[in-house]
């Protein structure tokens, strides 16, 4: 039905284009002076059909399944859903859905079969209705635009007006995405804070999200204090930054000051390669190579190192961040005006002295901005820690120990289980909200520092 709808609206749009263009050309051949070219009259009809019809079809497709599900669930016989948790209702929904697609397992109750049948008939009706609405809208648009073809009609301005509207809505999508992120995170977090007090979340020092699903299940009580989780994140971030900053900075200094042109031309792209490797690959590298190596090293020194130590995840994350920091520091060093460098050299300073005493201090704001962006990346980095860090939250700052991170908890809480009413799932959204806020603040500060510094010398 969707295919039909698209075919219909495309045909209508093309027909409108031909028809209006032809009409305009006829007017011109009749001796009238047109304001706009015939093509614009055609394009006007084309856009007038396409834009509203496509919006309707997309909205329809997005909302259709929700509306049909609501209708079907509301139409179930009284009493069958009484005393059922939302998980059980989800299951019934899924069963009705699969029956309606012809996959019947076992011997479902009659009311489920009826509901499935109802679902199918609603779907068919919705499809036909959509086709009808699209046809009506297209016809109306065709009719209105056909009447507008006149010599003095400013078709080009009309077309450009529609195009401008489309361009503006494209750039508004970016805002919608941000609003969507904030709304969805806040909305689910509020539901979480209705179950778990916000003070417990912010100041609690114990994180044990494995709560009982059924009454009789033996499980932990459940504790949702995020402090140990954010502490673990900071430990891993700290390890990553401590390794990545000196290496990235030193390589930027070398590339900027000492390297020959040829070496730079080769070394820079190779460094960038490190930034292009997907993080899931780094995660695999961490568990396969780095973690065993660190453990062997610890064993030879007699240090007790946990299997998924923060050192492994942190150092692999550092490798990922090296090109990031290096390119930021490189930009910052290159942005220092030539006159400063020349002045220092003219006084007899060596290259090393020029870098450490003149260029580096002048470039510090830019470098700090880059490091802050790297910190925000490290906090938000997911795959490396999901694969290489631990799952259990501990209040520890020992990097040899196994710690967990915000992103690890988000992923483990949401993999597989998505009933939206248990604090366990909703906790992931609360963590996501905190993650979003923290990284956003760091990013804003970092971007401001970088921009301000650029203006200083430009």
């Amino acid at each position, binding site marked *: 039905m969707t295919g039909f709808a698209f075919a219909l609206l495309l045909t209508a749009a093309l027909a409108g284009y031909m028809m209006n263009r032809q009409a305009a050309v006829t007017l011109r051949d009749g001796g009238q002076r047109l304001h706009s070219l015939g093509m614009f009259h055609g394009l006007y009809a084309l856009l007038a059909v396409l834009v509203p019809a496509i919006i309707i079809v997309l909205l329809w497709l997005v909302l259709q*399944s*929700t509306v049909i*599900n609501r209708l079907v669930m509301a139409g179930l016989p009284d009493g069958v859903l009484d005393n059922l948790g939302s998980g059980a209702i989800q299951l019934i929904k899924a069963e009705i859905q699969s029956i309606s697609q012809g996959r019947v397992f076992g011997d479902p109750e009659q009311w489920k079969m009826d509901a499935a049948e109802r679902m199918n008939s609603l779907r068919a009706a919705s499809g036909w209705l959509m086709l009808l609405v699209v046809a009506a809208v297209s016809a109306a648009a065709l009719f209105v635009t056909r009447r507008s073809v006149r010599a003095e009609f400013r078709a*080009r301005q009309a077309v450009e007006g529609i195009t401008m509207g*489309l*361009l503006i809505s*494209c*750039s*508004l*999508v*970016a*805002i919608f995405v*941000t609003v969507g*992120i904030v709304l*969805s*995170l806040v909305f*689910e977090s509020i539901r979480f804070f209705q179950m778990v007090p916000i003070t417990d979340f912010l100041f609690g020092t114990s994180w044990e999200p494995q709560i009982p699903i059924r009454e009789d299940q033996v499980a932990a009580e459940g504790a949702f204090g995020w402090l140990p989780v954010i502490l673990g994140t900071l430990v891993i971030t700290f390890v990553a930054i401590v390794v990545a900053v*000196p*290496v990235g900075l*030193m*390589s930027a*200094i*070398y*590339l900027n000051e*000492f390297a020959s042109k040829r070496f730079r031309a080769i070394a820079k792209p*190779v460094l960038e*390669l*490190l930034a*292009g*490797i*997907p993080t*899931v*690959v780094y995660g*695999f*590298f961490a568990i*396969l*190579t780095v973690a065993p190596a660190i453990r062997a090293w610890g064993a030879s020194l007699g240090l007790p190192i946990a299997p998924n130590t923060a050192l492994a995840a942190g150092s692999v994350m550092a*490798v990922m961040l*090296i090109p990031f920091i*290096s390119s930021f520091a490189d930009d910052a060093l290159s942005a220092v005006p030539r006159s400063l460098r020349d002045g220092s050299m003219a006084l007899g300073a*060596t290259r090393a*002295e020029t870098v450490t005493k003149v260029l580096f201090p002048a470039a510090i704001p830019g470098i700090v901005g880059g490091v802050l962006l790297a910190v*925000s*990346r490290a906090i*938000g980095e*997911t795959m490396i820690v999901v694969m290489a860090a631990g799952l259990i939250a501990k209040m520890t700052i020992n990097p040899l120990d196994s710690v967990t991170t915000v*992103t690890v908890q*988000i*992923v483990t809480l*949401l*993999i597989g289980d*998505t009933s*939206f009413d248990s604090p366990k799932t909703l906790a*992931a*959204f609360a963590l996501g909200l905190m*993650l*979003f806020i923290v*990284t956003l603040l760091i*990013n804003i500060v970092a*971007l401001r520092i970088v921009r301000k510094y650029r203006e200083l010398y430009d």
Partner: protein
Amino acid sequence: MTDQTNDAPQASHGWASPEFQNRLSRRRRSEAILKGVGLGAILFAFLMLGILLWTLISGGTQAFRQTHITLDVPISAELVDAEDPSRGNYRNVMNEAMQVTFPDAEEGDLRALSGIVSNAAQFEVRDRIVADPSLIGQTITIKVPVSDPYDQLNKGNVDTESDETMRRLNDAAIGWFQQLQDEGRISKPINWALITNADSRFPELAGLKGAIIGSFYALLVCFLISFPLGIGAAIYLEEFAPKNRLSDVIEVNINNLAAVPSVVFGLLALAVFLGWFGMPRSAPLVGGMTLALMTMPTIIIATRAALKAVPPSIREAALGVGASKQQVVFGHVLPLAMPGILTGTIIGLAQALGETAPLLLIGMNAFVTAAPSTPLDAATALPTQIFIWADSPERGFVSRTSAAILVLLGFLVMMNALAIFLRNRFERRW
């Protein structure tokens, strides 16, 4: 300076004085140290890249070959009914085949012996018989993968000297395999199943077909959404937007969006696309939509840079002959900026191809044994498949994970090479 002039005024001023020479050599030494440390930092990064690639290649190349066994399978009419060959007892058919191959094996060994052959063998025999029922009663020759432990043995990953109880294959099993090898039944052809099969619980059968197709659908959806939206937004911001608060807000917004952690986009998709709109879980369509939201800022930033690079003379010339502002943009500026836009788009899509975390949250890490036929079917993507395999305990999945990573990196290299080619071939320097 002052104390030097007081103590030894003559010596410190001469360039040949020992103090000066000392100072000079000290300064040169610190320069050499800084240079050495810088070079060391770069070499450290290279070393890490080298170790990473070496780990992947040395581990992954093994998985590009798969040990196969050539077996004569007698199809007895007792086990397979000619009327309905699809319901024959093919497990026992395979057992008979092993009996024929090892005539002196005891009854109790048969179970272990049939473990040499992959589970897929019986289905391959079944498919052959269903296609040609006249084979019933004859003996057919098949070439099928061996199961994972024997594959590892053949690739030299099993230490045959170690304690028998500590490994998955005992000495008898190794002896049987040796016998098969001596009979020339064992071969190690290229493992096409890695690309032509979908996922499986058995390492010797698992392949990337489902993941590759899932990634393809997701990238296609991602491209179809983010490319027009990104170009539209960039054109508006670069060419038409008035300098006001709203434009500033949009601009800051896009810069921040580019730095939002990817897992947050996964949360957005989970809450909005799956939770509120009721879209299917694990579908490449939803994955593509999520990736599109993340790719859009990249495309916008690249498009704006490309539009900026078109010189004003082009615009002025077009405006001068009477084109409207939009005609200038769509007729002249945009086509000239296209190579730059395409380069940025391909790089953005390459990033999207490697993105894992948001896809995990919308369930694209499901265990799916069939390749998706539409973007609405449940599927995995390449990076999530790597994640699943990296989590699997079987020994065979370790090398397969490396191989899958090599396949993913291969795609990334191809996309980036295409972007570089486009840039060098079509980009103009004004």
